[in-house]
C-alpha cells in the first residue's frame, strides 16, 4: 500500500468515510467523518490510520515506568509530579519493606523528602483522582531504576518524541549507547536520566535536542550516526550487502577464469 503523510490541524476532516480496520487515538467521529483533534501528521497504511501528534498531554497507562518528583506528603504516602495532567500517589508501605508502616513512628521525609526524584511504575489509572504508583519490580524491568534516584543528569522531552529517540526496535537508542558511555534510562513520561561524564552528557543532550527538533524527518538514524561518528545501521547493512555482491562477483570471475582456462 502506498504510504500517505499529511499535516493536519484540529478540525481537519481526514476522511469522509470511516472505513479503517484500526483507528488510532486523537480522532473524533461526527457527521463530518473522521476528524483530527490535534496538530500533527496523519499516516495511513495497512488498513489503519494514525495521527502522530506534534505535542500531546501525557496520559499514563498501567505498567508505565515514569520518573517523578516528590511535591508533597499525604498522611500515608507521597504525592509525585510525573508531568501528566494529574499527580501520582506513592503509598508509604512501598518504601518500607520489612514491616508495616506506622504513622506514629515513621517519619515520611526520612525516606523521601520534597524535591527528591523517584522512579516508579504506574499501578492504577482511574478516571478521577491521582494515579497509583508502585515500586514493585517484575522480572521484565531489570534495567529500570525504581526508588530514589541520585546522581543522574535529567533531560526532559515531550512524550511524542520518545518513539524517535528509541527508534525502530530500539535502533536509535542502541546507536546512542554504542558511543556514549554511561547509564541511560528512558522513562515513559519523557524524562531521560543519564549518569556519566559531563562531556558525554552534553553530547547526549545535543543529540536528543536534534531528534526532538526533527521528530518527523526521515533518515534520522543516519544523521545521528554521522554526528556520533559511528557507521549507521543502514550503512552497515549496505556494506555487508556490497561485500556479498563483491564476493559473488569474485566467485563469478573465478568461474570465468576457470572456464577460460578450460
Amino acid at each position, binding site marked *: 500500500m*502506498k504510504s500517505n503523510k499529511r499535516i493536519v*490541524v484540529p478540525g481537519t476532516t481526514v476522511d469522509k468515510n470511516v472505513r479503517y480496520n484500526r483507528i488510532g487515538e486523537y480522532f473524533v467521529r461526527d457527521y463530518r467523518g473522521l476528524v483530527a483533534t490535534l496538530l500533527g501528521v496523519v499516516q495511513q497504511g495497512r488498513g489503519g490510520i494514525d495521527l502522530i501528534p506534534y505535542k500531546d498531554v501525557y496520559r499514563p497507562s498501567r505498567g508505565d515506568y515514569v520518573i517523578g518528583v516528590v511535591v508533597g506528603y499525604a498522611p500515608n504516602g507521597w504525592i509525585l509530579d510525573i508531568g501528566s495532567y494529574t499527580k501520582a500517589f506513592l503509598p508509604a508501605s512501598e518504601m518500607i519493606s520489612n514491616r508495616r508502616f506506622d504513622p506514629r513512628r515513621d517519619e515520611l521525609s526520612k525516606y523521601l523528602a520534597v524535591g527528591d526524584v523517584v522512579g516508579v511504575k504506574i499501578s492504577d489509572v482511574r478516571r478521577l483522582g491521582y494515579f497509583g504508583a508502585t515500586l514493585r519490580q517484575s522480572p521484565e524491568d531489570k534495567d529500570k531504576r525504581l526508588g530514589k534516584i541520585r546522581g543522574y543528569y535529567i533531560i526532559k522531552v515531550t512524550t511524542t518524541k520518545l518513539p524517535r529517540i528509541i527508534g525502530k526496535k530500539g535502533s536509535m537508542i542502541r546507536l546512542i549507547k554504542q558511543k556514549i558511555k554511561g547509564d541511560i534510562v528512558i522513562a515513559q513520561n519523557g524524562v531521560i536520566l543519564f549518569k556519566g561524564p559531563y562531556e558525554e552528557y552534553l553530547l547526549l543532550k545535543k543529540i536528543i535536542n536534534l531528534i526532538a527538533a526533527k521528530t518527523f524527518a526521515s533518515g534520522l538514524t543516519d544523521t545521528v550516526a554521522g554526528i556520533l561518528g559511528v557507521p549507521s545501521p543502514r550503512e552497515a547493512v549496505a556494506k555487508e550487502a556490497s561485500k556479498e555482491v563483491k564476493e559473488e562477483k569474485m566467485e563469478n570471475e573465478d568461474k570465468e577464469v576457470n572456464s577460460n582456462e578450460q
Partner: protein
Amino acid sequence: MSSKKGKKKSSDEEKKEEFIRIDGRKPDEMRPYKIRAHILRNADGSAEIRLGGNWIIAAVYGPKEHFPKFEISQDKAILNCRYHMTPYSTTERKSPKPSRREIELSKVIKNALEQAVVLEEFPEMSIDVYMEVAQAEGSTRVASVTAAAVALADAGIPMRDLVVGCSAGKVNGHIILDVGEEEDKEGEADLPIAIMPNLRKVVLLQMDGKLTHEEFKEAFDLALKGAMELYEEQVRALTSILKDMEVIEEGVKDEKE
C-alpha cells in the same frame, strides 16, 4: 419610474465602490494580518496575532488540577480564560485592574472556546488561556479568540475545530469588514463574530449599534468572509511549525485529484 430607480441604484453602486475608509482601505478589505504559533518558551502553548495595529499574545497552560476544589466538574475540564489589556496597550494609560469590559470579554471568549475544546477528556482538570493585548486598535476580542485557538492547538489540547473570529460594521451607511479603532468609536454599528469554520457553527455573536435586517445579513456574510481568510492564516501558522521540523507531505496531491 423604473429607469429612475435603475439610475439611482447604479449611482449607489458607484458610491459603494468609491467609498474609501479612514485608513484607506476598501469596504471589504482586511487590515494586514500575521499569526505566529509557539512564540513563548515557558508556556505549554502560545501564539501571537498582529491584525493592523493590534498585537495580542495568547498563552495556554494545562490541563492541570483545578483549584478551588469545590468548583471542579466531575465530567469535564474547566476552561479559564483571561482577556487582559496591558497598561500600555492604549494611547492613554489603562489601569491594569480587570475592568467590567475585560471581565465580560473573558466570559464571551470562554463560551466561544468551550464549544471547540474536547473538555470531556480531562475530568476534574482545568485549562488556562491567557490573552494579553499588548497593543489595541479595534476588534481585539475576535483577534484574541483567533490567537487563543492557535495557542490551544500548539499546547496539544484536543479540539473539534479551530475557532476564528472577525468583525464587520457600518460606517456612514456603508457596511465594512474588520472594524478599526476610529470606525468602532465613530461608526454606527459593529458586529464581532467567531465561528468554527469546519463545523459551520457560530460561537460568538455580539452587536453594538443598529443594523436593519438586510444590513445585518450583509455584515454577517462579510464577517464570515474575513473569518475564513483568517482561518487560512491560522492553518498556515500551525502547519509552518511542522514544516520547520522538515515534515515532507506525501500523497496529498493524489487525494485532491
